[in-house]
């Protein structure tokens, strides 16, 4: 089998894959370091995980504050129930796992023990949407839909390392339960070039454009910015409105930007086309009597394939290149 090494390197469906493009600036473990910094002045904060501290960057916190770190074992329902119990006693838990297990496995526990009692639990979940090629068991294509549907839940999908750093103190200051998607490991750094400041519940226009407006969340905002650069070369002028908070949705800002008539509106998210930002924006627009040409860039309503992440992002149309081509096609 020595021939294997001579063949071109195969593309991997490994669980952990980087979303950083070649040569992109990154920051290591932004969530872990931001939580450590915040915890210096917030003695009420603890970290909890379900056997995934190393894979959610919470190990950084565990090393800095070993007596404020709770390893609950691979038991996601217990994690959420115990976080609720802690919160009842005045502690503010940051509970981490993968998005699939935090939402799909532990949903009822979050719903009943955390959200119904409006508890101050911050649920931080790695591998959101399609950020692993490992297959449907680890691809959280529907986590935003699930969490949006839950009363009282604040739902956040940060774009990059800077936004994660800014979001950590912001969600800690916010009263009530929060679900935040997490990019971990070496996380791309993009928004520092846009004089950006995260605020819970606020959408921000990052770039203006006359031909189309992309309304995006999470890592799709960095993809949208790249796609806009690609399209600029073809003289297509694309604006990008970043919506990191899916719930509560910043309807006034969205209406204001969409209200500028004539532009195609394309909502882009690293999530199934069902129940995420696309449907949230569509509902807000229609309920306010606004009906622009409207398109969705999202994952299909399907069990996604296993494979290398770049392959899958191209296949499902959420790479910058695929996105640029799609938008160009729509503009005719």
């Amino acid at each position, binding site marked *: 089998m020595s021939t294997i*090494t001579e063949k071109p390197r195969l593309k*991997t469906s490994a669980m952990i894959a980087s979303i950083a493009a070649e040569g992109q600036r990154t920051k290591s473990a932004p969530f872990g370091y931001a939580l450590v910094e915040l915890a210096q002045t917030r003695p009420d904060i603890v970290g909890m995980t379900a*056997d995934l501290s190393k894979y959610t960057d919470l190990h950084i916190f565990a090393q800095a504050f070993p007596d404020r770190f709770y390893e609950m074992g691979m038991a996601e329902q217990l994690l959420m129930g115990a976080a609720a119990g802690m919160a009842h006693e005045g502690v503010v838990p940051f509970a981490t796992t993968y998005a699939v297990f935090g939402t799909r496995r532990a949903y009822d526990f979050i719903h009943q023990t955390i959200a119904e009692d409006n508890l101050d639990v911050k649920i931080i979940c790695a591998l959101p949407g399609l950020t692993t090629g*490992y297959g449907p068991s680890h691809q959280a294509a529907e986590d935003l839909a699930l969490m949006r549907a839950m009363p009282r839940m604040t739902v956040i999908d940060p774009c990059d390392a800077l936004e994660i750093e800014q979001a950590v103190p912001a969600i800690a200051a916010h009263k009530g339960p929060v679900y935040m998607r997490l990019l971990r490991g070496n996380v791309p750094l993009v928004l520092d070039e846009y004089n950006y400041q995260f605020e819970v519940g606020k959408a921000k226009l990052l770039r203006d454009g006359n031909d189309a407006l992309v309304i995006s969340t999470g890592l799709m905002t960095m993809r949208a910015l790249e796609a806009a650069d690609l399209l600029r070369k073809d003289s297509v002028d694309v604006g990008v409105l970043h919506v990191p908070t899916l719930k509560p949705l910043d309807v006034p800002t969205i209406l204001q930007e969409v209200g500028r008539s004539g532009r195609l509106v394309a909502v882009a998210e690293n999530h199934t086309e069902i129940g995420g930002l696309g449907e949230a924006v569509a509902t807000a627009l229609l309920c306010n009597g606004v009906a622009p040409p409207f398109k969705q860039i999202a994952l299909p309503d399907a069990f996604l394939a*296993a494979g*290398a992440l770049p392959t899958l992002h191209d296949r499902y149309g959420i790479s910058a290149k695929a996105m640029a081509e799609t938008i160009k096609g729509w503009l005719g």
Partner: protein
Amino acid sequence: MRAGDGDQEDHVNTSVTADRIQLAERAYRVRRNSVLMGEVQGQGYVAQALDIADVLAVAYFHAMIYRPDDPEWEGRDRFLLSNGHYAIALYGALIEAGIISADEIETYGSDDSRLPMSGMASYTPGMEMSGGSLGQGLPIAVGRCLGLKRKGSKSFVYTLFSDGELDEGSMWEAMLSASHWKLDNLIAIVDVNNQQADGPSSQVLAFEPLADKLKAFGWFTQRIDGNDLDTVIAAFDAARHHPEPQPRMIICDTRMGCGVPFLEAREKNHFIRVDPHEWQLALAALDEGRNA
């Protein structure tokens, strides 16, 4: 392998020693297949594959009834891989059993391969469940056993899971249920390699004394050295022939990296990276063990 017509209930051996030597060779080949797959990706759950190869060799080439050319044959024993990341080990056994072609080794974990890193029923012949979300194998096994009983089938359901899965409440629900329903057609195997994602399983969430717990739950429970072939063979035989109407559990204490001394000695890790030149060394170490 007892890939017969399903009628012969007892496995008949010309000699116990011959069977053991043959199984040692099977285990070697399962390990070798797994290491070759690990080499394709340069990383992976290879240490787990090495620790569980002896158990898989006994399951697939001593205990189970199946037809390699017809993996969905109704009369087969079912094998449910709950810990989907152990697929690299199970593929090794399925290749050795002739259910998958060895030609597919070089596609392991690649785009459009039938051998994804996480075991999925829809991708691979002989894979009976999709297991990446841990803690689901035993619940499915309970239903399989109930379903087989409804059909009057004599097939066994085997399910392999990992010590990390002991953390999941769903597994304990299923343990209660299997005992409640007196599932004597269920043989569960837990790999106690004392490792999970964040560290040693016994430190992540204490689960000992495990055998006492399972006995208290009503299971026919054996605890064995999962890397000692004779013991593994005896445990599978005892599980199959146990006369009482209760589910059977084989707790296997195993050594990660077993068969490749330098991997065994390495700091234990859930997911290992192996340097390119080390794969040849790993294969050489397996050969050495084979000839010893």
